[in-house]
């Protein structure tokens, strides 16, 4: 079953064609090119750009696979979570196509897309229950996947998302915004133990959530406490120290909770999953907990994209007959849709 998928949840206008877990095309038109990886949005501009580009993205997604809408059996669209005025552009376009060609329309949760993105073009079998970790600019969630479509949130952030914390730390170092990706590069050149930063929630009894606000505050004090202009070396070491603590905390919470569940697989998605150091630490955690750690096969599946939306829809509805669940008229944007709630 071929699915045409659309995602306009943030600042990438994305369309894709997928079949089951196979990506046939994956068109991403970024509004702010490379530097928008984790954010940087002007809402009205984002909306206008989505409107201008969505037709082109859809056409290109179809053309790349030598398809027309007539070869498509369903339309999938991100209904949430995301920026309302951005989401509504994709939802309106999906509804229009579904109605015009009399196709079923599947509303997909953007986080479910990230969660299942490691399964794209993936042949090995994943056993359930599996663990899933979504780390991006807007989300940090550890999820228990009982099976495709049944999710339980085991831990999420109580303040900042991981990607947001990295971006803000980069900003404090004068590395611009969003700067998580550059922070990673600076951190590679620095020594992570140079500056003592607190371990988030070290004393808290609540081990079921992530928190980056205390670390952010300590970092602010560290950076602003330095009277003179920071040298490149200091910037490297500060970046390394911050990133180290942020990841240690993530790994600790995932380990604590992860070992309680009989999972064999850990799926990792979202923008921060592109971070090499984080990948290394998660693989190490996988070895310790006997988990197979899986990342998306391509960086194009890591940031926001529509292929992951098509895959989530395709895995959830492998059978065409099951599809008559939603009438296009019933589908609307849900800006704060949580992954553990059915549409």
């Amino acid at each position, binding site marked *: 079953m071929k699915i045409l998928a659309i995602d306009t949840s943030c600042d990438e206008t994305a369309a894709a064609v997928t079949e089951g877990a196979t990506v046939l095309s994956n068109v991403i038109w970024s509004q702010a090119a490379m530097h928008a990886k984790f954010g940087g949005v*002007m809402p009205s501009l984002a909306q206008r750009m989505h409107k201008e580009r969505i037709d082109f993205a859809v056409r290109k997604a179809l053309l790349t696979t030598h398809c027309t809408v007539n070869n498509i059996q369903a339309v999938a669209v991100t209904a949430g979570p995301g920026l309302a005025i951005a989401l509504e552009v994709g939802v309106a376009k999906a509804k229009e196509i579904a109605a015009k060609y009399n196709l079923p329309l599947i509303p997909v949760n953007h986080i479910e897309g990230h969660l299942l993105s490691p399964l794209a073009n993936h042949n090995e079998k994943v056993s359930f229950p599996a663990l899933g970790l979504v780390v991006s600019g807007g989300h940090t969630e550890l999820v228990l996947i009982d099976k495709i479509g049944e999710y339980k949130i085991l831990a999420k952030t109580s303040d900042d998302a991981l990607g947001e914390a990295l971006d803000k730390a980069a900003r404090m170092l004068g590395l611009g915004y969003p700067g998580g990706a550059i922070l990673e590069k600076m951190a590679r050149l620095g020594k992570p133990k140079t500056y003592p930063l607190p371990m988030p929630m070290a004393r808290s009894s609540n081990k079921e959530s992530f928190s980056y606000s205390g670390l952010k505050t300590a970092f*602010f004090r560290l950076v602003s406490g330095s009277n003179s202009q920071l040298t490149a070396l200091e910037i490297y070491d500060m970046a390394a120290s911050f990133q180290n603590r942020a990841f240690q905390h993530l790994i600790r919470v995932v380990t604590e909770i992860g070992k309680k569940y009989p999972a064999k697989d850990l799926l990792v998605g979202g923008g921060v999953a592109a971070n090499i150091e984080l990948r290394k630490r998660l693989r190490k955690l996988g070895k310790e907990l006997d988990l197979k750690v899986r990342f998306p096969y391509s960086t194009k599946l890591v940031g926001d994209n529509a292929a992951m939306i098509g895959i989530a829809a395709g895995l959830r509805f492998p059978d065409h007959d099951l599809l008559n669940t939603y009438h296009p008229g019933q589908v609307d944007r849900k800006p704060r849709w949580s992954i553990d709630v059915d549409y």
Partner: protein
Amino acid sequence: MQIVKEKDASIAKIVEVLNRGGLIIFPCETVYGAAVDAANPEAVKKLSRYKQRLLGKPYAIMVSDQKMAENYAELNKTARSLYRNFLPGPLTVVSKGKHKVAAGVESENGTLGVRIPDYSFMLKLINGFGRPIVATSANASYKKRPYKINDILDNISQKQKRLVDLLIDAGELLHNEPSTVIDTTLDDTVVLRQGKVVFGQQSSVVSRSEENTQNIGKELWQKYEGYAGQRAIIFALEGPMGAGKTQFTKGLARAMGIKEEVVSPTFSLELDYGRLVHLDAWRIQSGEELENLGLKKKISDKSILAVEWADRVADTIRKYNEEAVVVWVKITYAKEENERLISWGVV
């Protein structure tokens, strides 16, 4: 296409190629790049044809020094600090452009990426040319990173080859990453002009923990909740990174009976908890953008809003001084590590 070795290349000849709108492929400290004259619109179009690049994706310019950069982009404090620390080097610094380059080089928002290569041949070339070149990696979009000229020649079509006027071969380059791009246009430049705000009454208190800060949120809610349903209430929060604006809102929300966990809205810009709408102006570039999130309607619906980084959009919030109850809350760091001074006042 003409191929010359770097050691045999003459700067004057290359300048001549650039001056007549030619496209060159050149070595630098990252990967092989393709470049044209940044001021020549036809040449930039040619570069886009070569790159087979989607419209709307901005380019970066290469300059020889900061002085040349300042003729083409407005460097703020962040940008200047980056230039000082990291340039020349594999870093593209995005600033507000001065619109002196050909169309399509700056982004749709008018920002411009600038880089100073850490490669003496290129610095000499740009110096000789006297103005910036538009430079991008020499591979077609989404193709292999070019570290030697065959990485390019084996992967481009005849049509693309015909677009290249001159190729400067320096053998195999060190396998460095392409340059990193940093956007400096989001700077904390908008400062609340405190002088304009006249508080009717003002109070302040010291918080010693996150819980304290949350409780102050709760108390302020109890103080002003009498207006709920009659007028919109805006809690306009200001304070540096990590001061506790989200913590304050957590307390506010809990006092309002909201069960959901309140988290930072920086990425989402807006999180709607039903009774309370939590907004964040940090990534918003102007007050107008706040209006585009439907501020006017929220005010006329008598909503209750908590706005983080409200000082960045102070002028917009001030427009609603009559229609809404605006409670300005300022959180600042105090002497002790966990201490904050929280002061508030109603306009």
